[in-house]
């Protein structure tokens, strides 16, 4: 009998404990949680909002870079303000950013030491329950419980996979474990309870390097980070194995053997009234770096297209073929303030093939590049190679790289041209 009561009360107490811990967390941490607002100076109204949390006694607050990106690019047009749990607002200054991991540090004035979130010193374990905090849709502070599912597979810059309903507006808010230690920062959602977090180690690195030497200029800091990231990415792409694969049994193309580049295939063989049979293989890097709402960088897109004429004259085939290659463009929607116009040149190129074949290919090759206005060593590049040596078949090879250095772009281009051939 006693044992029955004991068991009953233990179960009851553990149930009550589970319910209380969410409330407890909320109550204890709210003083260190903020809403960040970007105020447009001209109109005086807020143009974007997000969540943020304090990580030091002297007023350092962490949030996402994309929450304050407009300020980072146009500091004269905006100011950043916080809204705390008591309804007070005041201006903060931007002190450091990590544009690759979408983090930013802002600083507020403090009159005395304040409570702050402590950052965990180890990773969570798979299946562990975590709590995401934030301010979704300007509705007020909420807690969203969820589960840690480990790092997202096949990503170039690490992200945590979190099953919980993060909403926009919670960007920049902390994700804590049961011990109220920060293990991640809200950054993105895929909808339907699939969310992504920046691992807390990235914030630790950012904070430590800020304490060691604060950056003099945010744009220069961003430029250095973008340059370092593309160096890492391009080295990985250029130096890994390029497998030579077949396309539609008639062409050879390179497949870069890295986990973060994923490839898809398609063809129109099912369309019986098409004049040209086409088979496509396209590969891309699934993530990119947000610089501002219409300006993304760091992306890689590759496409190979094999075409065969079905009952057409040579001239008509090439006439339609030309229409297919005349409209290549950039992946991002960068504008006049972000980049220069494209500079292009073209030539006839016959490469020495590195593909697994004895055949040669003769291409009309086009290369275009444009420079970034705020980050002088970075460029968007575009390449298109169109075969011109077969009467009734065509092989188009194409890639775009966003935000790369000149040297990396040309090394990649040279290797790419030589890896494409007929079978």
């Amino acid at each position, binding site marked *: 009998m006693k044992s029955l009561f004991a068991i009953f009360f233990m179960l009851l107490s553990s149930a009550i404990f589970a319910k209380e811990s969410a409330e407890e967390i909320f109550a204890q941490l709210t003083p260190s949680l903020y809403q960040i607002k970007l105020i447009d100076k001209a109109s005086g109204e807020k143009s974007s909002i997000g969540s943020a949390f304090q990580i030091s006694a002297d007023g350092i607050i962490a949030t996402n870079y994309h929450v304050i990106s407009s300020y980072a690019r146009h500091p004269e047009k905006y100011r950043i303000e916080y809204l705390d749990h008591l309804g007070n607002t005041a201006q903060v200054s931007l002190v450091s950013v990590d544009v690759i991991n979408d983090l930013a540090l802002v600083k507020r004035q403090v009159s005395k030491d304040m409570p702050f979130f402590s950052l965990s010193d180890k990773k969570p374990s798979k299946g562990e329950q975590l709590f995401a905090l934030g301010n979704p849709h300007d509705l007020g502070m909420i807690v969203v419980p969820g589960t840690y599912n480990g790092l997202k597979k096949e990503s170039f810059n690490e992200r945590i996979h979190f099953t919980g309903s993060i909403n926009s507006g919670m960007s920049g808010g902390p994700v804590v474990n049961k011990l109220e230690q920060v293990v991640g920062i809200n950054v993105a959602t895929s909808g339907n309870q699939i969310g992504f977090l920046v691992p807390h180690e990235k914030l630790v690195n950012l904070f430590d390097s800020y304490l060691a030497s604060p950056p003099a200029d945010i744009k220069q800091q961003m430029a250095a980070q973008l340059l370092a990231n593309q160096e890492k990415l391009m080295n990985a792409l250029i130096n890994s194995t390029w497998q030579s694969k077949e396309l539609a049994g008639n062409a050879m193309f390179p497949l870069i053997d890295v986990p973060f580049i994923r490839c898809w295939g398609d063809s129109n063989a099912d369309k019986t009234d098409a004049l040209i049979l086409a088979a496509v293989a396209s590969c891309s890097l699934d993530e990119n770096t947000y610089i501002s709402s219409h300006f993304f960088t760091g992306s890689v897109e590759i496409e190979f297209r094999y075409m065969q004429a079905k009952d057409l004259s040579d001239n008509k085939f090439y006439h339609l073929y*030309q229409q297919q290659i005349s409209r290549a463009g*950039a992946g991002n929607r960068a504008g006049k303030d972000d980049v220069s116009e494209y500079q292009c040149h073209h030539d006839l190129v016959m490469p020495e093939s590195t593909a697994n074949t004895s055949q040669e290919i003769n291409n009309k090759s086009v290369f275009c590049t444009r*420079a970034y206005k705020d980050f002088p060593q970075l460029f968007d590049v575009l390449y298109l190679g169109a075969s011109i040596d077969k009467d009734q078949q065509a092989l188009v090879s194409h890639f775009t790289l966003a935000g790369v250095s000149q040297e990396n772009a040309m090394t990649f281009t040279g290797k790419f041209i030589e890896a494409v051939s007929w079978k």
Partner: protein
Amino acid sequence: MEVTNKIPEPEAFELSAEQVPSTSFTDHNEIIIEEVTRNHKLLHRHRLKQNNVSIGRDYNNDIILTDPHICPQHLSLNYVQGAWQLADNNSVNGTTLESENTKQSLSEQRTVNDGDVIVLGKSQLRILFSDHKVAETVAFSPFESLIDIVRNPIAVFISIALFMLIAANISYLNQQTAINISQIFVSAFSMSLLFALWPAGVALVSHLTKHDPRVLAQLGISFSFFILMWLSDLLEKVISFNSASNSMLGIAITLLPIALAFSLFWLNSYIGFHMPAKRRLFIAFAITSLLFGGSYLLQYSKKPEFNPHPSYNSTIMAPPFLLAPSSNVDEFVEQSNKLFDKASKAAQAD
């Protein structure tokens, strides 16, 4: 008895300078009266060998005019003492000499000289004498033989047929679905009709300005040149396909269509109109500038302030048209490197 009448040999004599009469050397009792338009284009020519000429709307005149603003017995021209005199018969609307700017009607008799233009009612009459100097003969230019070939109905037929074939081929190339013969035919036919508007228009203007329209010649020469322009387009495409970015030939070839258009306009005006050579050159030059300058301006005005898309030469043709050698990858990479400097400069520029 024989009687012979001896007719004395006339003595040869010369007119000394003083003995030459002070009026013109030839007798002017022959008068040529031309009915002309306001621009002095000939409508009808009368040649009369009489000393008195009556002019008016009545049917008993020597020259019968139909202008309702002319009186039935409007005026008379009389050869008196070696000169022609003009006499207005108190006409309602009067008579004036065009060379005299006054609108005043001629109140008394006036001497009429070679080349004078008489204005009566809303009509003009030009007076000429048989010793009127005519302009130099214009020799045939070398183009006459070309035009003779081109205006032959068989040549016209062949050039229009060839043009239709070319239009049909263009329509075939652009069809996105399976071959549709009737569509190709309709397209070729309507293209030819559309292009025929140009020579037809020129011939019409020619006819309206009292020249010989010469429709066949205009059709023949125009369609021949349309075919030549298509050939120059093809040549331009082949060069664009074969050349690398900074080739001189590519720039030079864009002048060919301009030269062809100029030549066509010059020939159109040679066939259809009489005018001094300088004027013809000027007109051909003006129309060519309007055509090419206008389309260039139109393109330029439509360019957006900032173009986020790359603009590159994507011309490709079937392998038989490949004539130039290919570069290797290193050469291509080296040329590409130069672009980065240009892009960086453009980025820093504004």
